[in-house]
């Protein structure tokens, strides 16, 4: 009797229901508990003076500081805030990934439509893909500079190779039957891309986007720490130079939480799209 009941309730839950169950009933609680433990031992460590509060300010100072709403650092032109820095970094990642997705889509379409180009493009992207995203930072700073476009370029280079390769792999693994049948049903080239290939590759493309987000997120932060003149990474470096350790901590936590939140968001979109294409 029991298994039957639980199976039934599993079937009746909607997607959002299942996601919230996953998030709140089990994982979310453990998530909070784990962080609570860390924060408590940190606080205890500072209180017992095992940790130097000058270097590792305790949560009782850091957390109120993080939510004080007006965190800024630097003077004059260099002045920047947590919110502003985060927005700048996110904008760079978004723009770089969007351009990366567009360019890699064009490359993938060319490779599929013109088999000769496969021989030209594939070796190039195959040699691009293994280059660690951070390796582009020195090159970019010299060639493009230390502003926003340089950051976008780093993100773009970080995702271009892997994104193109995943798109081509996804297109190559579409079951032959779909293409034969679509062709047989008189599908034009454009409709073939839009109504057959695109929906067929959505699941693996979403996974590829999630994967390359991590690379992009890390590359842009590293770039900002290594010389770019704004953004979250820059803020952390500046805080470190001005010995504002509270802000360094807040910055690190912000990186973690935003990365985590965006990954979850992509996962949610992924689940939605999967439901649509299956």
């Amino acid at each position, binding site marked *: 009797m029991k298994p039957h009941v639980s199976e039934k309730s599993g079937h009746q839950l909607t997607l959002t229901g299942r996601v919230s169950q996953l998030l709140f009933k089990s994982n979310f609680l453990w998530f909070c508990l784990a962080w609570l433990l860390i924060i408590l031992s940190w606080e205890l460590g500072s209180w017992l003076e095992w940790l130097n509060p000058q270097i590792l300010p305790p949560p009782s100072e850091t957390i109120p500081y993080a939510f004080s709403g007006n965190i800024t650092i630097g003077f004059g032109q260099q002045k920047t805030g947590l919110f502003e820095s985060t927005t700048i970094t996110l904008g760079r990642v978004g723009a770089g990934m969007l351009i990366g997705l567009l360019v890699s889509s064009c490359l993938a379409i060319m490779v599929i439509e013109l088999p000769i180009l496969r021989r030209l493009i594939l070796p190039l992207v195959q040699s691009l893909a293994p280059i660690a995203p951070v390796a582009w930072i020195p090159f970019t700073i010299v060639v493009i500079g230390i502003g926003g476009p340089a950051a976008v370029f780093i993100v773009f280079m970080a995702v271009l190779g892997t994104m193109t390769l995943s798109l081509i792999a996804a297109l190559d693994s579409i079951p032959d039957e779909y293409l*034969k049948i*679509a*062709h047989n*049903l*008189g*599908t034009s080239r454009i*409709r073939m891309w839009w*109504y057959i290939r695109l*929906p067929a590759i959505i699941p693996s493309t979403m996974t590829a986007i999630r994967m390359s987000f991590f690379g992009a997120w890390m590359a842009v932060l590293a770039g900002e720490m290594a010389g770019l003149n704004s953004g979250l990474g820059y803020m952390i470096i500046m805080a470190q130079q001005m010995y504002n350790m509270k802000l360094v901590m807040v910055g690190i936590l912000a990186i973690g939480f935003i990365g985590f939140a965006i990954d979850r968001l992509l996962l949610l979109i992924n689940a939605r799209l999967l439901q649509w*294409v299956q």
Partner: protein
Amino acid sequence: MNTIPSSSSGARLEFSNIRKSFSDTVSVEADRLIIEPGSLTVLLGRSGCGKTTLLNLAAGLDFPDQGNVSYDNQVLQGPAPSTALIFQTHNLFPWMTAEENVAFPLRNQGMVRVEALEHAKQYLKQVGLESFAGHKPSQLSGGMRQRITLARTIATKPRLLLLDEPFSALDMQTRRMMQRYLLRVWSDSAATILMITHDLHEALMLADRIALMASSPNGHIAEILDIELDRPRNPENQSFRVIQQQLDRFLEHETLLAEHAPILEATDQTNHL
């Protein structure tokens, strides 16, 4: 409304002196096979004997190394015109609902969406699935999916139907039902049908003619049989059973030839070691 009349006659197919090689050891041949307009021909043989290869040639999706396939006396040089393909699986696009799948070829022809969906519902009705119009293929059984595929096939008003083991993944009852649906589509449309199966019973239930394929030394058509049994076919019938036994013996022999030879070789090798 519809430019192609539904009574348009079936296509005529002719294979002559076909040879298609895949490697030094594997090739498929068909010396001469004529498929008359409006007939239902079955390619019967064990797997690997070249049935799908011949079907691809007929569809104009692949081309022979020697010889040619003609469609209404014209040598095929590209995808065969007004031809419908049905495979064992993956016939429906999983991201489209049943009605969107059926409407898809109509939309390809430029019909507006609302009208195409309206037509699609009519075609779904013909296979008894109008109430599943909004369902995704993943929500339907294998038999229902193949019926929707048939509905879409009717919608395109083909002159030639090429079916590659379309019912092999279905259970026996569903398969029988699908065979009846196919026969109904055939008699309603007057299309020519070329169908692959490895199921002897299915071949005898459907075919006007059976092209028996054998796989050694190369895949080739070993024999062409006209099946002159009355329709609807009755498996209990004496003449049905006689033909069935004959063909069964042929297939048995063919299996022995194809499968025991390599095993004997393999045993030889282990003896040498």
